[in-house]
């Protein structure tokens, strides 16, 4: 019990110190991507659904937050929350269609929908600015405090992201999360027990997409700028890499993965334009050693030494992949 409190305290301390350890814009990026990865893991780690179109929801959140902040003057945090709502509204029809498929064909159909969202974002210039994107998105102020300084925005975004993360973690460790795990483990049996599996999947995907949209909102206000790369398929790929790197179905894995990828990208992009290749190489190397991701593998080692029983672990990467029929 005491070690748990210490763990939470340490996490909070790292969170509060982060903008002084690295520069604040990067720190907010880690928050936003960490929330995105945690929201994504509700589907990948917990439910066993690999969405390859989550950029659509992250990006929709970013565009929606930018538009309501810039054109309607909606203030923080409500602009970011509008991003979550927009992503949820988009997710409802798209995911209702996607969840009729499982495994690799779910990944393909979500990718196809995300490509459609990309083309709409490109074509709808009056709203999204097309290739030029939307610039000059204001952060505004909160309770009279200007959020223009990057550090100020970090401390405004921190509680919002923390709430989002707590919701992700609660969803995964709730009675609902148990049913999602059951679906991941054995969909037919879950259905035969009397659970309407499609309804559970729809609720899980909409929650995941809404939280991804919130992350997109936090992210766009950080940069004051959003363009097509937010809805590009590489954004969907990046969040997959983050979760696998950190460890799916673990509490801290998505955060660790997001932080690593963002730090690596920041560090490597100073030296080379090919930071993507370098990140990919490191990803493969890490996954070869840490088959359940960094946090997943470390938790496995601790549990193996007679530590407290870990939450139901996710299968290693290749087992998860072989489940993608």
């Amino acid at each position, binding site marked *: 019990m005491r070690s748990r409190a210490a763990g939470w305290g340490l996490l909070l301390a790292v969170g509060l110190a982060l903008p002084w350890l690295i520069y604040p814009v990067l720190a907010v990026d880690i928050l936003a991507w960490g929330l995105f990865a945690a929201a994504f893991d509700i589907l990948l780690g917990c439910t066993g659904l690999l969405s390859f179109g989550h950029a659509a929801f992250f990006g929709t959140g970013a565009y929606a937050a930018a538009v309501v902040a810039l054109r309607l003057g909606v203030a923080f945090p409500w602009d970011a929350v509008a991003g979550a709502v927009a992503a949820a509204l988009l997710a409802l029809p798209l995911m209702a269609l996607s969840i009729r498929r499982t495994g690799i064909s779910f990944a393909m159909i979500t990718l196809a929908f995300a490509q459609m969202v990309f083309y709409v974002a490109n074509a709808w210039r009056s709203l999204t600015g097309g290739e030029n994107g939307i610039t000059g998105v204001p952060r505004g102020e909160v309770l009279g405090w200007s959020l223009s300084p990057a550090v100020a925005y970090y401390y405004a975004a921190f509680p919002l992201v923390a709430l989002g993360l707590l919701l992700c973690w609660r969803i995964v460790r709730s009675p609902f999360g148990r049913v999602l795990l059951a679906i991941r483990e054995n969909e037919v049996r879950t259905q035969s027990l009397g659970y309407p599996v499609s309804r559970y999947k729809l*609720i899980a995907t909409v929650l995941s997409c809404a939280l991804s949209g919130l992350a997109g909102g936090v992210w766009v206000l950080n940069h004051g700028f959003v363009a097509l790369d937010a809805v590009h398929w590489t954004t969907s790929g990046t969040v997959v890499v983050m979760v696998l790197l950190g460890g799916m179905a673990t509490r801290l894995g998505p955060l660790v993965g997001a932080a690593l990828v963002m730090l690596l990208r920041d560090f490597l992009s100073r030296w080379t334009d090919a930071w993507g290749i370098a990140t990919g190489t490191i990803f493969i190397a890490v996954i070869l050693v840490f088959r359940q991701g960094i946090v997943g593998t470390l938790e496995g080692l601790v549990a193996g030494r007679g530590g407290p029983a870990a939450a139901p672990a996710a299968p290693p990467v290749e087992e998860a992949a072989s489940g993608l029929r």
Partner: protein
Amino acid sequence: MATILETHGLSMEFRGFRALDGVDLRVEGGTVHAIIGPNGAGKTTLFNLLSGLLRPTRGRMLFEGRDVTGLPPHEIARRGIARSFQITSVFPHLTVLDNVRLALGARTRLGYAFWLPERVLARFDEEASAILASVGLADQRHRPASALAYGQKRVLEIGLALALHPTLLLLDEPTAGLSLEEIARVVDPIRRVARERTVVLVEHNMGVVAALSQRITVLQRGRVLAEGTYEELRAHPAVIEAYLGGAA
């Protein structure tokens, strides 16, 4: 007692192959009704239809007088039909206790509560313990289901179906691959359940069939070959030839 389950001309085709061909079945409430027949006769396919996992290509199914043809599996489960699987089908990475909690929770709406902590599931623990004790798994409750021995998994499989408190319980070869001692552990709970519920039992072990069931339907190549009590079927020429042959 009244008829609880009826099928009329139930048929299932797989790409032109008729796994079930016009099956008429009547199961009386409160009985144990065995379905026997050689491998490939269509017994599991019949269960897949009755539990909604497959839609029949032809025919109708009535449960408690109401048409349930084509209902999805969760809807059929809600109406009181539970099944076990011939190939063990539990939740491997969850603990034995969590497996049973899931089954118990299926009758509530608690599963939607994504805002509650999972400790609220402890409300099922007393009942789960009773079920696990009744199938001899009480001391295994905190192990992941994947760590159980084969026989224990089979027993958990039955436990999950029992936890649904079904009106009609479909058991697909519950004793397949079990030792004599384990068979006893499965047969006792089935016998207890059968006092207040209806059971349809697919079973190869003729001793178990004779001990538990009041009525037997013999399936062969997707059709009903004969129906009657154990004594009647023992004397039935077609059944002796096709199935009981050596055993009778």
